[in-house]
């Protein structure tokens, strides 16, 4: 049933630090790699070496520029993927029951054996987190690497989503956001983590940490010290003028 669970035991999700993210797209590549070789239909590329390449990704990094009046502009890199919402509109619109939210850990998944590829869940998602794979005709989305995080065959340090494992800046954190004492929950509390588009009532589990405030220069910029050259430089200036 595509009814949402009333409560999930855990709320597994990501915390993404917009202050630390350098926009390297490492998480995008790691995600594509892992999810092409593992769970479900591979993430296809269409016309990859041709004139009009395209493809399915579960995570994409956008870069934004923010500029306040009279201040220097600042670049913010924002990786965007499924936020595993508590009140996920993509789940309830699904006509087949393919889209579901797990009651044990809150992960939102697609049962590919039931999906008809109608695309309505992608329409219902405000975050553009779902992409219909053009080869498979099946809706693809972030699985929170459900096939890594519980995988006993992997060394313990690898039992996190591929994007978190690969992030060279340490901008991505994985954990239980339902537990107020977890590292990720403390991080969110300390840094003022926020939800994307909270007014739409989706109650995202994933949180974003805002960029830390930039310090501003409190001294005046250096004055020009030598407008009119004097002494030896003055003589050189005049001599060169005459040449």
């Amino acid at each position, binding site marked *: 049933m595509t*009814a949402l669970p009333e409560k999930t035991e855990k709320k597994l999700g990501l915390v993404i630090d917009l202050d630390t993210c350098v926009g390297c797209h490492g998480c995008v590549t790691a995600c594509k790699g892992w999810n092409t070789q593992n769970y479900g239909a591979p993430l296809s590329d269409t016309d990859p070496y041709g004139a009009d390449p395209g493809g399915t990704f579960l995570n994409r990094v956008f870069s934004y520029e923010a500029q306040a009046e009279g201040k220097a502009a600042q670049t913010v890199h924002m990786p965007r993927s499924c936020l595993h919402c508590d009140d996920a509109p993509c789940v309830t619109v699904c006509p087949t029951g393919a889209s579901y939210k797990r009651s044990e850990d809150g992960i939102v998944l697609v049962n590919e054996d039931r999906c008809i590829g*109608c695309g309505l869940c992608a329409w219902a998602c405000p975050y553009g987190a779902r992409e*219909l794979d053009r080869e498979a005709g099946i809706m693809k989305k972030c699985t929170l690497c459900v096939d890594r995080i519980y995988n006993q065959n992997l060394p313990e340090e690898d039992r996190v989503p591929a994007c978190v494992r690969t992030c060279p800046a340490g901008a991505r954190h994985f954990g239980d956001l339902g537990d107020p004492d977890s590292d990720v929950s403390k991080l969110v509390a300390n840094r003022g983590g926020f939800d994307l588009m909270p007014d739409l009532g989706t109650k995202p589990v994933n949180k974003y940490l805002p960029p830390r405030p930039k310090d501003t220069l409190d001294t005046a910029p250096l004055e020009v010290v030598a407008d009119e050259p004097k002494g030896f430089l003055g003589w050189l200036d005049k001599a060169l003028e005459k040449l």
Partner: protein
Amino acid sequence: MHPAPSVIIFTTLSGLGFGLFFWLGLGVPDVSGRTAFAFFFIAYALSCAGLLASTFHLGNKKNAIYALSQWRTSWLSREGIAAILTLFLFALVAVPRIFLGAEMAVSGAIGSVLALITVFTTSMIYTQLKTIPRWNQPLTPVLFLLHALGGGALLAGEAKIAGWLLLALTLALFAAWQIGDKRAQARGTTGDATGLAHLGKVRMLESGHTARNYVVDEMVYRVGRKHAEKLRWITLALAGALPAAILLLTSPGHMTAFLALALHLVGAVVGRWLFFAEAEHVVGLYHGK
């Protein structure tokens, strides 16, 4: 939103078909025998062609049977069930009417209600989406119902009823655009969507991809917005005002009814194309659009 031809054909034709069913169920026009066969044939042809078209945009048709399972939460599932129930019930109405001349008043009336419920569930697939503020308003179901009732009355040969309904449709279309424009503007900015508005004015520097992709193709489709104003007037005139004027101001006849129907059909298709093409999805904000 990307105006997929399959969805435009589906919503337009099945709306007309179920609209005609509504009137036939009520015994309007009161027909039996061959005439009844002709009317029911048209209603079945339109609704089935529409429903068939709706399956064309599915990526994975083999799982289609599961689409009837989630009626507790999904409007799309409810629509499938309502459509099948309506089509089935009308077989029980049509056969006795055509071959036995029976009236079938009660089951016909139930069928009429079901036909309207079907159209309503179709409209709710779009109305429920908070992500598309233009659709997420009370007039969206009204529009779908008036399209079905007006177009259905036109097909049923009820010129005057159709005329008044199409007049109501004209007003509803106009009002829905006004409300829709306000709602679409209230979507906010890229700064609001990214939660970075406190840092100043936010613009997209680089999108997450250099090539096209599903989200952009499907939900950041903007061609319709360019000519929206002109297409709205065309829709208003062809789907509503002109046929309404013809039906209400001339004496009923086959020629005028046919002309009104032809105009209404073209207008309805243009309007439905625009319904999708001009709709703004909030995800566009992340793309700076």
